[in-house]
């Protein structure tokens, strides 16, 4: 097997006495759509935060694309190619939809003060790229709309579009289908497949089992901060531990 794109080894995270993550090890291969499922409070979002660098892990190590990233902060990891969305959605609400996407496109300029003060935001090539991403996420009609005025479902798409605009190697989606109707979730799954077709590897946290089973190539099941099962959706669904964890 080739070198995995992301490798987490025995990653732990404690909050006081609580072990939110207990020695979690996982790998993500380039090109796959990986699912991360588990009941509420299992530590899925905490794991995302540790992988993306918004929370330091209490133990273990993380490698990405051959780099040791365990000690890097979130913005450094983003610049290396890890993009993400947040469970509750974090958009720049006073910007328009297009400006949110443009903000993602600026990633190459954010590393240094000099580069960020010399680059113009609305150059020809940026606007063309933004248009293309807005099309991919079916946001062209809302391009000039202030994000704050849009329904939550659309805001989630804006957030994902902004993440894809950073041209990442790996995209972490935290419950993208939460609050979407069945039809909206279907169409979002289609978008995720097209994102993968651009060469972006995707890890998705999902509560909606049907959505996760349909979309992903492989699943990890996280329960109480530990991984209890891993494999293709069809296998995981039959796993007695998983059935017990989900059905009590």
């Amino acid at each position, binding site marked *: 097997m080739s070198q995995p794109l992301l490798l987490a080894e025995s990653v732990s995270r404690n909050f006081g006495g609580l072990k939110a993550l207990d020695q979690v090890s996982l790998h993500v291969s380039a090109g796959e759509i990986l699912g991360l499922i588990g009941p509420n409070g299992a530590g899925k979002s905490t794991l995302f935060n540790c992988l993306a660098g918004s929370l330091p892990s209490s133990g273990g190590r993380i490698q990405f694309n051959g780099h040791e990233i365990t000690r890097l902060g979130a913005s450094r990891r*983003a610049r290396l190619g890890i993009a993400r969305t947040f469970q509750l959605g974090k958009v*720049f609400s006073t910007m328009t939809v297009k400006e949110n996407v443009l903000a993602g496109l600026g990633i190459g300029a*954010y590393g240094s*003060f000099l580069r960020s003060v010399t680059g113009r935001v609305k150059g020809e090539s940026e606007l063309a790229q933004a248009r293309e991403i807005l099309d991919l996420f079916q946001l062209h009609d809302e391009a000039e709309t202030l994000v704050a005025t849009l329904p939550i479902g659309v805001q989630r798409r804006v957030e994902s579009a902004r993440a894809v605009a950073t041209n990442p190697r790996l995209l972490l989606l935290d419950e993208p289908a939460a609050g979407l109707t069945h039809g909206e979730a279907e169409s979002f799954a289609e978008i995720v497949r097209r994102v993968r077709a651009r060469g972006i590897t995707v890890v998705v946290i999902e509560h909606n089992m049907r959505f996760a089973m349909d979309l992903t190539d492989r699943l990890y099941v996280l329960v109480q901060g530990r991984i209890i099962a891993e494999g293709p959706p069809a296998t995981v669904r039959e796993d007695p531990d998983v059935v017990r964890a989900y059905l009590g």
Partner: protein
Amino acid sequence: MDAYLISVLTFIGIWIILAMSLNLLVGYAGQVSIGHAAFFGIGAYTVAVATVNLGLGFPLDILLAALVSGALGGVLGLPALRVRHDFLVLATIGINFIVVAVFQYTPALGGAYGIVGIPPVTIGGIEFLGLYMLLLVYAFVLAILALKALLLRTWFGVRLIAVREDEDAAAAIGISVASTKIWAFVLSCAGAGIAGALYARQLGSVFPENFGFVESVTVLTMVVLGGAGTLVGPIIGAIILGGLPEYLRFIQDWRYVIYGLMLTFLMIFERDGLMGPESRLRAWLGRGWRTLAADRGSGKP
């Protein structure tokens, strides 16, 4: 023009620069500071020392003031990386008190007597007093306004607003929140330094009490009143709060009460300020303008 009017307009121009510089920090980067007068003072004292003790001329003195204020702003902005917003406000107040105390108790800075005898700006043998100084100050206003408008169109402008909107989301698209905040402090304080430099040159003297907490509150009120995060807001705020007290004596006596009331009422009724995107005044002006324009159109025979 009447010399008094010229002097009032000159000081308003200086307030505009100060308010614009604070707006970069408060309105765009979202870092509330009630200690901005400290950097105004650092700029003024730098020019005082540079001209009186070192014999430096224009524009080197102002450049030096911008550099010193900007650098100290970056250093004193470091607490902003460690504390939450409400604590940052307290930290900036603390910085203001410390800086004033340094002015007050450093013999080399004249202590409580300040530094007097700062010469006016001289260019090509012409002393910039009165109208000349007024024009010089407004040249700076225009230059800084233009620079700020340009800066906001760059990726750095995106960095500022992204950090203001959501630090986690900003970091997720590769923006270093810490360095963005530090640069916002550096640029904002450098702007305050320029305002202070012009102030020292205009007034000819500097005293510790000119740069206290009350001045910080005043400039913050200008920004909030006009509309934080807008280009014209701080200008409007500085004109209103910088100009009114000069002509309405009772405002001068009651100004702290009035500023306090203004801040309170703004926070309740018009949080975006007079020129903010959600402002009632702006909507009302817009409506009035549209009505006028429509009337003019339909009024044709």
